């Protein structure tokens, strides 16, 4: 059971480039989340999804887009990379909003130069 899988693990982008961070889960969870963690800070919610075809903004959505075409996948898109988006990105999933614990992937470390 792989849980939540994120790819790539590391990436360096130039300012203005675009990329998609991949996230897939094999637990048949309805809820999926994207967080970012800046150095010395807690995780902040970027976007979340309560099921296929449904997404909504979190605390820090600017500069990002998401889609949820299947239950398993929840990719995060950066359209015009900026240095402020240098961070570690974590994807998480949970069965529902009331279940409590979210299962996290191991993160994508993204540097924008």
């Amino acid at each position, binding site marked *: 059971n792989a849980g939540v899988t994120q790819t790539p693990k590391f990436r360096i982008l130039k300012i203005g480039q675009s990329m998609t961070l991949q996230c897939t889960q094999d637990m048949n969870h309805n809820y999926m*989340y994207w967080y970012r963690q800046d150095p010395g800070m*807690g995780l902040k*919610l970027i976007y979340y999804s309560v099921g296929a075809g449904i997404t909504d903004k979190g605390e820090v959505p600017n500069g990002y887009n998401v889609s949820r075409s299947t239950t398993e996948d929840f990719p995060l898109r950066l359209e015009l990379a900026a240095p402020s988006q240098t961070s570690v990105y974590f994807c998480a999933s949970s069965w529902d*909003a009331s279940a409590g*614990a979210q299962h996290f992937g191991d993160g994508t470390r993204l540097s924008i130069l």
Partner: protein
Amino acid sequence: DQQVKQNSPSLSVQEGRISILNCDYTNSMFDYFLWYKKYPAEGPTFLISISSIKDKNEDGRFTVFLNKSAKHLSLHIVPSQPGDSAVYFCAARARGSQGNLIFGKGTKLSVKP
């Protein structure tokens, strides 16, 4: 403005002694609290949680205490082991928030043999 605060960036304890990690919150709408543990280069892993209708929850060596009047919770680890050395994040969920978590900045625990 931080809704979840972990005011101690680091804590060092001796193996076998008690570790106490603290967390304060400001939002009265929070109804569920969680502790996550994070090792370097890995995603956070769920440790223990507590509902706002309780004041204590215990799981093996880990106990979480909630003081609603003080808007304060703490995680006790007894006895502490070197493998407990990690960053511990306190997180909270607001009622009706679709499971979105607000994280503190984390406390780095070092357990010395």
